[in-house]
């Protein structure tokens, strides 16, 4: 079986700035859940931005193959349509644009790019309401402008809703657990777990073992100074909780 995502010797820097991703390698097969843990400032969020094509970064080496195509050649919206979803650490607010309208626009933009039939309003509304219910997102929140005035937890639920609706092949979750209380953590994790399937993979960036109790990974990577420095099974997360990253940072340096 072909891998879903292959990152080969990737080097990336901030445009006009310093190098952040420094010789990164990673292969994710369909259906796998990979966790990435690592110290602050190691470049984890940067990795998620480079994968999703955020402007402001320069790729200086290596390649990324996603579902058989050269990901780095695609625009951000094409990457999204190809099935890459980034669950933002800090979701953006869009004043004046209702959540429902945003979802409708997003879904159909992707469908159009893939040459699929677009969803009608009633189809979309039904689907969104159903998913919303499982995440504790009510009709009122769907009418409100995207993320405006949402609490930290509500924003994360909303990200999960978008993810469930868009049905991507690869979900990159950047600190999906930050700002969540225990109940919200369960709701969001349930959402993510409901998406688990043999074709769909997850890349879960987190600082805490706690999240991995709910979203159980197949593989755990330690990421330091711009690359993966150690890989293990799910028990590695527990070890890290006890020992910290000191030994790996030395390794990376």
């Amino acid at each position: 079986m072909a891998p879903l995502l292959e990152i080969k010797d990737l080097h990336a820097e901030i445009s006009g700035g310093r190098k952040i991703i420094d010789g990164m390698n990673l292969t994710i097969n369909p259906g796998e859940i990979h966790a990435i843990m690592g110290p602050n400032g190691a470049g984890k969020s940067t990795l998620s931005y480079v994968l999703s094509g955020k402007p402001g970064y320069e790729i200086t080496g290596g390649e990324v193959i996603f579902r058989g195509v050269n990901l780095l050649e695609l625009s951000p919206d094409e990457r999204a349509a190809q099935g890459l979803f980034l669950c933002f650490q800090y979701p953006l607010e869009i004043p004046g644009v209702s959540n429902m309208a945003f979802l409708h626009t997003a879904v159909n933009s992707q469908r159009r790019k893939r040459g699929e039939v677009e969803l009608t309003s009633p189809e979309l509304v039904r689907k969104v309401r159903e998913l919303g219910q499982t995440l504790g997102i009510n009709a009122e929140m769907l009418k409100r402008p995207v993320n405006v005035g949402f609490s930290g937890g509500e924003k994360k639920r909303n990200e999960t809703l978008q993810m469930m609706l868009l049905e991507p092949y690869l979900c990159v979750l950047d600190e999906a657990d930050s700002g969540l209380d225990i109940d919200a953590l369960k709701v969001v994790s349930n959402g993510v777990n409901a998406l688990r399937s043999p074709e769909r993979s997850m890349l879960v960036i987190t600082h805490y073992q706690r999240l991995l109790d709910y979203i159980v990974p197949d593989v755990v990577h330690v990421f330091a100074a711009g690359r993966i420095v150690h890989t293990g099974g799910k028990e590695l997360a527990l070890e890290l909780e006890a020992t910290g990253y000191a030994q790996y940072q030395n390794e990376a340096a």
Partner: protein
Amino acid sequence: MAAVQDTVEQVRSIDVDQYKYGFETDIESEKAPKGLCEDVIRYISAKKEEPEWMLQWRLDAYARWLTMQEPEWARVDYPQIDYQDLYYYSQPKAFKAPKSLDEVDPEILKTYAKLGIPLREQEILAGVEIPEGERPRIAVDAVFDSVSVATTFKEELKAAGVIFMPISEALREHPDLVKQYLGSVVPPTDNYFATLNQAVFSDGSFVYIPPGVRCPMELSTYFRINEKNTGQFERTLIIADKGSYVSYLEGCTAPMRDENQLHAAVVELVVLDDAEIKYSTVQNWYPGDADGKGGIYNFVTKRGDCRGKNSKISWTQVETGSAITWKYPSCVLRGEGSSGEFYSIAISNGRQQVDSGTKMIHLGKNTTSRIISKGISAGRSNNTYRGLVSAHRKAAGARNFTNCDSLLIGDNCGAHTVPYIEAKNPTAQFEHEATTSKISEDMLFYCMQRGLTQEDAVALVVNGFVRDVLQQLPMEFAVEAQKLISISLEGSVG
């Protein structure tokens, strides 16, 4: 809820790379001699078969205009206008006021059809397919260069007692009404462009709503400049008598030309006790090309007089066109308890220059006003909001709320806010809020990560930004306005 989606789709379906109204109609015209002098004014007045007092009124204005200076305080910059190098009157050749649509020149009917403006009464403005019976009905007065070529729904309006006709015709059929109100809101001394208009205005719409009548449909005027080197000077007068209501829409386009063209209109609104006028504009004159060549100079005076108690005026404008916009739709809040509203979306792109805003002049007790202005600047354009809120000594309890937001797209454009506030009555309460923001890369990236193209993302964010104002527009106009907004921002990023 799918409004945004609709916009995105509509924009896609339109050929967006050019001003789509920029075509020219090939039709022979009859013009006054070039330049401005008393004889030209006499020519216009004679063409219109005007009464003597009207000619005199024009000549007085002309004499005054000769002594006036072109205003220079606005934040706009343009070469000196040569007022002798313009035609002041142009009408389709062999023009005879048509009695029915069948008599209108087919070329002109085609022009309006191409513009999406239905002169056939069964159609509607946005050209959307809506089942019979549910179609909103709009009466249209179509002004082509200097003359009104067609007015629809005349009979039905007449039955309701509503007068809606070209002002030149109203001068003949209802001279007393016109004489009583014309120039009573914008006096001959008002400003350079208004005085010029008074001297040379050619046509425009006249509306009178009798006491207690709610106008049975939306009224609209559609202005089209076609001729080269021709100024357009229309004059609109709307009177809402006691307890009446009317919603009036105004739209405009012009061909693409390399020369600048002058448009200096005057709109006067008079509202008596307990009456209301809602006046909406979608201004889409040719803005010039990307380098600032050509385009309309839009120097317009619009003012409403809330003469009666509890009277109300609401101005809503979507300004996307013109090389230069100089316009301040205002309300004189004279009647006790009267109220004025101004909702504006002003978009500038390319080399466009906008200096626009409003004046809310509180004269009466317990008068209220509300200003919501959204300025969007892109390209190398400059966009200024200029607003005056004043309370007279006697305007006890006057209240105003102003909210002025500017959105910048890119690094080469400018946004400016110039508020003037004068309260001579200590009980007046004026509130002013203003924000300036840049369309953020992060916000666009967020939208694109969810699948929107960059252009769709900009359209979405901008539509969100202007939503409060779009909601004020009659539905069919809102659709049109959304399209325009997206089109006028084409190529503004990346």
